[in-house]
């Protein structure tokens, strides 16, 4: 109402001054109408639950009515017609002629949706889309008519001036009914004018009528909206129904229209100040201010604060009391000003929640669930920019909770819970942050399924997974690539899309976490900064310069070099650091920034800032860690935008400008090479002609010529003191991490050089580690490997040309089996058979592929269904499928290669249903796998 009135006033002013600029009006209209519609949405849901509450219905009615009136004014007939039909139906509720039922409310909501669709198109194109909505309008009209208790004609069903005029006659008796039709017609307008006339403060003023003489059509539209406003005015302001109609004077219809409008305006204005009259919403004194104005104010105030700080610093040294007093006041006022300006950017979070009741209602109707949405802390304020950015993720999460989190009513009853599920949304302040929590009392997250999916997507390995606790597994839902939903706003998508939610939240410096208890419910909590403009940053020193790293990206700080247990090591000139049993890539900030690097990172003391860059931890070597500071992020100028290392600049408290490092940009190159490596890993196992570049570890063992081991297979490189290598049961073992690890020599025997440490390649699989002792680790190379198969020698898959030299490629699987003292039944195969290896777990692929290749099979690895499908499309032929049970079942369900034997390998063979699979084997039993394969593929051949 306020919005529409605002528009009408503005229109009025525009008409008087320069004539209307429709574009401006429409954009204003769009803003205000979409706000109104959101309110209608949530009010309708409230109304459905409280059909007796007249105040809610009145409010809805009034809002829709003003939307309709404004549409009419702006010449938007489609919108007006839909709004009108919806309003008509509401009118019936209001008059008690119809009782409120969910289908009815749904119908009204549909009309609101249609209005939104039309508005979107209006926003996009500047005009209403072609087409018409007669079907919807017909249903609305039928609803309004069809269930009426008496058979009275419904005058408001058609936009016809006559019935409206009839209604006019009943005006004296029933003010409320008078408004119900919501008609916009000249007849009504005249009546309105007549009734308004006695109260008019002035005679016809000399207004610039001529301004809009030429366009009668537009003229009429002006009249229409004024009528709408008048209705509203009468509803609340007309105290005396028995007034005598004044004599009709010789005024043109144009004039009367304007006067009527003006009168209505003044009436309305008067009404605004009369509180509580008929529940009319009170008009707050607000001014719309452009965001850029506020931004400029922010900048100016920041500048003022800075100047004040400098001044304070200067005066502190002086003993001038005359200055101190005024300065103190200046300081206080500046602080207040700063607070005030910050406040202008604040909005209650409830604004972002307004759509939620409607969404919950839709979910509950669509799915037949009973859901209660509880909202707490709507008044919690946060920066409008943050609010805008948090809106879609929040909506998405609430929908998720209702959709995926809550069970069906019958399941809830079975589980001993109330039939009605609850989604609780709460917001509150906590130490400079806003905490938003979204909790449901549903079934909780399915840990097992998440784990499986994470494996399937290659996000983790069986080994890692088995070490994780529930909370860690739950967090996979935030992992990039976990879900397939493309956009966070895509509410219709069934995918979870939580990675997108996380990304959006992290973009604004927030954190999201989840905790879930099976059967009890799931609880998401989001922690976001109050404002975007200010972030917490770590100030580091590098080469006598200072830089800021956003605190959010910083995982930890590690001291390296002299006197520290951590040190930076190199692997073929690539720096790495061991951190909690992991090798972490290390970059030197000096080198990243192209600064002189004369120090020796391996030796010199310094700090490694472990940052999260695109989900991976990377260590950045810096000279010094200086401080943490709240900084105001300023964008870079266009000259610097191309430099990826920075995300912005900031002014520190002392007035100096420093650059803000962008973790992702900084690690950009490293990450891209890591991704190459990851894709190389996937291909490394493919011991076939499709060989891509692989990273190979070159070692010397039992001879001068180098041997190559795919680096992706190696878990760790270790060195042991020869004295720690013991012999038990005729085998070399070493105590490693509290266990005995067998050591197998890659050469003929372990050559213990006096005083030298024994280099060992450690392979970990299924909780056991195996060490492969070599004489020397030579190098790491990345090359395209064309492997020549058919080596007769044990422990060698074949030879390849690496760095221009013929190099044996080591058959790791053979050595691993050696260590288990297990014989792999190796058959010399005359005919090469092809195996499609499908396993979502990259580690599994890496382990199985060389094994199969060594047994004389050609292996085509595939990591996921996408790859499988691509392979299927290229009509490749295979002799057998090997892979994890889930993947194999999926392939079968898609009708691919149905005639082939399928051998599932899994860590949990007893858990896997064996339906339709030729065999299910434990992953650890290599011999069985080869034997089975040989058997089935022989069978095929026979």
């Amino acid at each position, binding site marked *: 109402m306020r919005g529409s009135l605002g528009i009408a006033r503005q229109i009025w002013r525009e008409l008087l001054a320069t004539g209307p600029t429709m574009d401006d009006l429409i954009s204003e209209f769009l803003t205000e109408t979409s706000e109104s519609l959101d309110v209608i949405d949530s009010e309708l849901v409230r109304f459905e639950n409280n059909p007796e509450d007249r105040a809610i219905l009145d409010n809805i009615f009034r809002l829709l009515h003003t939307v309709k009136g404004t549409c009419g004014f702006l010449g938007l007939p489609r919108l007006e017609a839909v709004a009108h039909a919806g309003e008509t139906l509401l009118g019936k509720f209001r008059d008690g002629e119809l009782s409120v039922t969910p289908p009815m409310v749904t119908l009204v909501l549909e009309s609101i949706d249609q209005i939104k669709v039309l508005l979107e198109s209006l926003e996009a194109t500047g005009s209403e889309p072609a087409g018409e909505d007669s079907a919807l309008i017909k249903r609305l009209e039928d609803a309004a008519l069809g269930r009426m208790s008496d058979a009275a004609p419904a005058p408001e069903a058609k936009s016809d001036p006559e019935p409206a005029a009839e209604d006019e006659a009943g005006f004296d008796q029933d003010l409320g009914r008078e408004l119900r039709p919501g008609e916009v017609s000249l007849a009504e307008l005249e009546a309105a004018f007549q009734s308004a006339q006695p109260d008019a403060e002035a005679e016809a003023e000399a207004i610039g009528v001529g301004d809009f003489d030429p366009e009668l059509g537009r003229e009429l539209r002006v009249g229409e909206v004024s009528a709408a406003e008048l209705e509203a005015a009468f509803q609340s302001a007309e105290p005396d129904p028995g007034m005598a109609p004044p004599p009709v004077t010789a005024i043109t219809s144009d004039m009367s229209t304007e006067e009527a409008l003006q009168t209505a305006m003044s009436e309305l204005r008067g009404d605004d100040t009369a509180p509580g009259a008929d529940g009319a919403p009170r008009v707050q004194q607000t001014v719309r201010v452009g965001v850029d104005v506020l931004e400029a104010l922010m900048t100016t105030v920041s*500048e003022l604060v*800075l100047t004040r700080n400098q001044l304070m610093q200067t005066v502190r040294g002086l003993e001038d009391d005359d200055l101190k007093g005024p300065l103190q006041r200046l300081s206080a006022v500046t602080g207040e000003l700063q607070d005030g300006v910050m406040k202008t950017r604040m909005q209650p979070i409830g604004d972002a929640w307004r759509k939620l009741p409607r969404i919950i209602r839709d979910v509950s109707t669509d799915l037949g669930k009973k859901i209660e949405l509880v909202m707490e802390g709507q008044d919690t304020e946060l920066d409008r920019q943050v609010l805008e950015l948090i809106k879609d993720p929040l909506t998405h999460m609430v929908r998720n909770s209702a959709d995926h989190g809550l069970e069906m009513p019958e399941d809830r009853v079975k589980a001993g819970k109330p039939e009605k599920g609850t989604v609780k949304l709460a917001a509150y302040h906590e130490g400079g942050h806003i905490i938003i929590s979204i909790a449901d009392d549903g079934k909780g997250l399915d840990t097992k399924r998440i784990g499986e999916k994470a494996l399937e997507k290659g996000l983790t390995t069986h080994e890692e997974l088995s070490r994780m606790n529930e909370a860690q597994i739950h967090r996979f839902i935030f992992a990039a690539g976990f879900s397939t939903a493309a956009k966070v706003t895509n509410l219709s998508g069934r995918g979870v899309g939580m990675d997108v939610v996380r990304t959006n939240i992290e973009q604004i410096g927030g954190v999201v976490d989840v905790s879930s208890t099976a059967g009890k419910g799931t609880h998401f909590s989001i922690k976001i900064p109050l404002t975007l403009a200010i972030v917490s940053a770590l100030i580091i020193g590098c080469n006598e310069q200072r830089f800021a790293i956003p605190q959010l990206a910083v995982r930890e700080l590690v001291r390296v070099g002299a006197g520290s247990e951590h040190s930076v090591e190199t692997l073929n000139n690539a720096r790495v650091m061991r951190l909690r049993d992991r090798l972490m890539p290390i970059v030197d900030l000096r080198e990243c920034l192209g600064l002189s690097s004369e120090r020796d990172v391996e030796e010199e003391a310094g700090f490694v800032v472990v940052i999260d860059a695109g989900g991976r931890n990377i260590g950045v070597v810096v000279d010094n860690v200086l401080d943490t500071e709240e900084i105001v992020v300023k964008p*870079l100028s266009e000259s610097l935008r191309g430099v990826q*290392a920075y995300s912005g600049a900031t002014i520190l408290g002392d007035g100096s400008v420093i650059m803000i490092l962008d973790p992702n940009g900084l690690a950009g190159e490293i990450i891209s090479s890591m991704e190459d490596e990851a894709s190389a890993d996937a291909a490394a196992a493919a011991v076939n002609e499709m060989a891509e570049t692989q990273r190979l570890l070159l070692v010397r063992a039992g001879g001068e010529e180098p041997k190559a081991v795919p680096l992706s297979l190696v878990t760790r490189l270790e060195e042991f003191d020869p004295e720690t290598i013991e012999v038990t049961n005729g085998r070399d073992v070493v105590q490693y991490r509290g266990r005995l690890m067998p050591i197998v020599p890659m050469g003929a025997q372990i050559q213990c050089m006096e005083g030298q440490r024994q280099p060992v390649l450690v392979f970990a699989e299924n909780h056991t580690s195996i060490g492969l002792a070599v004489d020397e680790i030579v190098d790491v190379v990345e090359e395209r490997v064309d492997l020549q198969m058919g080596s007769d020698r044990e422990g060698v898959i074949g030879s390849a040309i690496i760095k221009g030299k013929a190099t044996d490629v080591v058959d790791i699987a053979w050595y691993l089996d050696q260590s288990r003292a297990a014989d792999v039944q190796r058959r010399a195969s005359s005919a090469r058979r092809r195996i499609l290896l499908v396993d979502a777990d990259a580690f599994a692929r890496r382990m199985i592929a060389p094994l199969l290749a060594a047994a004389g099979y050609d292996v085509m690895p595939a990591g996921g269904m996408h790859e499988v499908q691509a392979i299927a499309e290229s009509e490749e032929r295979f002799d057998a499928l090997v892979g994890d049970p889930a993947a194999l079942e999926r392939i079968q369900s898609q009708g691919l290669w149905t005639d082939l034997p399928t051998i599932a390998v899994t860590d949990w063979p007893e858990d896997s249903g064996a339906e339709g699979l030729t065999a299910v084997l434990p992953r650890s039993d290599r011999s069985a796998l080869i034997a089975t394969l040989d058997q089935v593929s022989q069978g095929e051949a026979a």
Partner: protein
Amino acid sequence: MTTEDQNGLATEAISEYVSVRIGDQLFGAPVDAIREVFTPTSVTDVPLAPNEVAGLLNLRGRIVTAIDARTRLGLPPRSADETGMALGVERGSEIFGLIVDSVGEVLRRPSAELEPVPAHVDAVWRSMVKGVHRLETELLAVIDVSAVIGSAAGKEAA
């Protein structure tokens, strides 16, 4: 600096220039292109930045990208002890500081006297110099401030 042509009666269009010195050459920057003139202090070096970016500095709470005019014009760098002066130029929402050697007085010249840049002048210069005024003792090269700042915004006349 003499401005003989200026007699107060002239109805012809007058152009006003902030005279600046870059290397040995006198340049004129159109007055309306310049927001202010300031001394660049505590300029933060930006590693990896394009050559002409001298760094960032704080101009009353706003971050200014300092562009070195010498680099842009292909002149040798200033000696380390000379800070130079900066012309503040607003472009869009950003402020650039064009660092020159020194700033002189404002010169007024009839617009009609602006002569085109001779064709044999270096192409880099020609892309940044809009024309030449003949002063009594030397030539005043009128620079296109926006072009000197360079990059994406194109070379529209300042």
